[in-house]
Structure formats: structure tokens, C-alpha cells
């Protein structure tokens, strides 16, 4: 590259011959794709911020919280269950665990990228495999979380009494025991959209894992593809950090 760039080109890097951003085409486009994807997620979070005000916030003491259609629920009172500990009140423990899993899988991904920059095929494979396992763990946790949310907590005094005398527990897109309907709808949309990203991230990681394993990157002479899927995977982690704060903590 340096030998091609004449002195007049060095004066203006935007006139061609060099890449002004000093990244490859594919990596630059991945960045801009992630930017556009970030705008989509922001749209969902902005919608949440706006629609939250359709009902007043819960005013009473947090310990005495009982869901109602009239006010917005307290998230830590809704998401307080973990597998195998039915009926134990452990607010946000499971979500915090899921956050940890995703952060750890991000760390293993960045280690895979680091190994890729050293052309160390074996280490790339090791860390990518851990990343895939982390992603699958997260997805399983989310499947459990959704099942629990849909079926209901079965807590004393919770649920909606139907006209025929039956008690409705849980939530779907047109009924919600936890509070206003929009709360459940936004839960499904935001965590569902994020979960879809995790799923596609795992699939993409598997494809690249296979390509590394059969030696495609070695033939190419570089592991930039691992870097690109790494960017996508970190982005999925990044989005979860925001969802965790704005949906579960606030």
C-alpha cells in the first residue's frame, strides 16, 4: 500500500488509493450494520420509556406489592424466580446470572479474536467453542424465563379472576397478570428481539467455528472473519447491558 500512495494522495486520504478508516470493507460494513441495529433496539427502548407512562408508577411500599392493571409493576417483584427454587423470593438473581453468562461469553470471544490475530487455530477453536456454549446457556435461561413468565408465578393473591370463575395466571399478548398489558407486550418484544439476535449470533458463530476447523482461515492467511463475528457478538452483549438496566433494574 505504502508504495502505491504517492505524496499527493497522502495529502487527502479521501481521494482514493488508501482506506481512510484503516479497516477492511467487511469490518467497516459490520460497524455500520451494528449502528443501524443499535438504532432499532433504541427504538424499542424509547418505546418502552414512552409507554411506561401510560400508567402511573407503583407508589406503595415495595414489600407489599401486588400487581394491578392500574399501575406499572416493580420489576424485581416480577422477576424473582430461579430454576429449582420454586416459591423462593430471589429478586433479579436469575437475570444477573444471565448477564454474567453473556459477559463471560463476550470475554471468551475476545480471547478467540486475540488468538486469531496470532494465527493460533487451536486456541481460536477452543475459545469460540466456549462462546457458543455461553450463548446456548443464555438462550436456555431465556427459554426458562419466558416459560415461567407465560405460565405465571402462582403466588398468593396474584392472577386475574375470569368471568367463568377460573383464575388466569401468567401473561400473553392479550392478558397479563403482572400489570398493564403493555408491560407483558414490551417484555416479549424487547427480550424476544434480543434473544433472536443471540440465536443468530450462535448460528453465525457455529458457521465460522466450522470454517476455522476445516482450515479455511489458514488458507486465507488471516482470521478477520472471527473478528467480524466477534463484533456482532459483543454488540449482542452490549444490548443486553442496556435491556438489563432499562427493563429489569429501573
Amino acid at each position, binding site marked *: 500500500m505504502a508504495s502505491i500512495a504517492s505524496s499527493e494522495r497522502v495529502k487527502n486520504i479521501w481521494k482514493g488509493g488508501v482506506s481512510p478508516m484503516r479497516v477492511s470493507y467487511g469490518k467497516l460494513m459490520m460497524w455500520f450494520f451494528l449502528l443501524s441495529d443499535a438504532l432499532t433496539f433504541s427504538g424499542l427502548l424509547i418505546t418502552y420509556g414512552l409507554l411506561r407512562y401510560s400508567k402511573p408508577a407503583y407508589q406503595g411500599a415495595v414489600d407489599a406489592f401486588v400487581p394491578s392493571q392500574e399501575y406499572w409493576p416493580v420489576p424485581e417483584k416480577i422477576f424473582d424466580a430461579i430454576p429449582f427454587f420454586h416459591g423462593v423470593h430471589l429478586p433479579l438473581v436469575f437475570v444477573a446470572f444471565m448477564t454474567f453468562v453473556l459477559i463471560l461469553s463476550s470475554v471468551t470471544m475476545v480471547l478467540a479474536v486475540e488468538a486469531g490475530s496470532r494465527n493460533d*487455530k487451536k486456541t481460536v477453536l477452543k475459545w469460540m467453542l466456549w462462546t457458543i456454549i455461553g450463548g446456548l446457556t443464555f438462550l436456555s435461561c431465556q427459554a426458562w424465563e419466558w416459560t415461567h413468565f407465560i405460565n405465571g408465578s402462582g403466588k398468593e393473591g396474584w392472577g386475574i379472576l375470569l368471568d367463568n370463575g377460573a383464575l388466569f395466571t401468567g401473561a400473553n399478548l392479550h392478558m397479563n397478570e403482572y400489570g398493564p398489558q403493555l408491560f407483558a407486550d414490551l417484555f416479549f418484544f424487547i427480550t424476544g428481539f434480543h434473544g433472536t439476535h443471540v440465536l443468530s449470533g450462535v448460528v453465525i458463530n457455529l458457521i465460522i467455528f466450522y470454517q476455522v476447523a476445516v482450515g479455511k482461515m489458514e488458507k486465507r492467511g488471516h482470521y478477520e472473519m472471527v473478528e467480524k463475528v466477534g463484533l456482532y457478538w459483543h454488540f449482542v452483549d452490549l444490548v443486553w447491558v442496556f435491556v438489563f438496566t432499562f427493563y429489569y433494574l*429501573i
Partner: protein
Amino acid sequence: MALDEQSTVAVKPVNKSKVWLLVKVAIILGVITVAEFIIAYTFPDTLRVLKISIFVGLTIVKAFYIVAEFMHLKYEVKALIWAIMLPMIFVVWLIIALINEGGAILQAVY
């Protein structure tokens, strides 16, 4: 098409300081998540605005570490950093603004 090129790429030794930096960032992210969790448990309900501000602040710190170190954006050229960061700064501002006072829009409609 360099298909018949032999795999002559040599494996370089591990860059220990780089790996240590990544582990350090991972520890920071973990500590912040634990701190958020503890704050959610123990903070008094009367200081709601302060609590939410702390959560948003810590989230932005976490986002900075993920984007700067894990996604390597800190080490890219300035043009790329700003191309990504400028739109994001405005959007994050919009999220925080609407979570803070989105109710005003609903009041204007009804």
C-alpha cells in the same frame, strides 16, 4: 484465488499484556454488575431518582468498556470512532430523555 497457497502462517506467541488487559476489563464489568445488583437490593425507595441515575451511569460505563476494549473501537482511527459514536450519543440521550419525561408526550395527546 490463493487456494493452492500452503498454510505457511506462523503461530505467534501469546501477547500476555493484551490478554491481561482483557481479563481486567472482564473483572471491571463483573464488579459493576454485582454493584448494580446490590444497589437494586439495598437502596432505599425514597431516593428513586438517585438510584436510577446511578444505574444509567453504570450502564454507560459498562457500554464504554465493551465498545472501547472488546470491540476495539478505542484503537481505530478518529474518523471511524466519531462515525459510530456521534449517532449513538444522540440516541442514548433520546432514550434517557424519554425514560425521564416521556409522560409529557402522552399528556399532550390526551
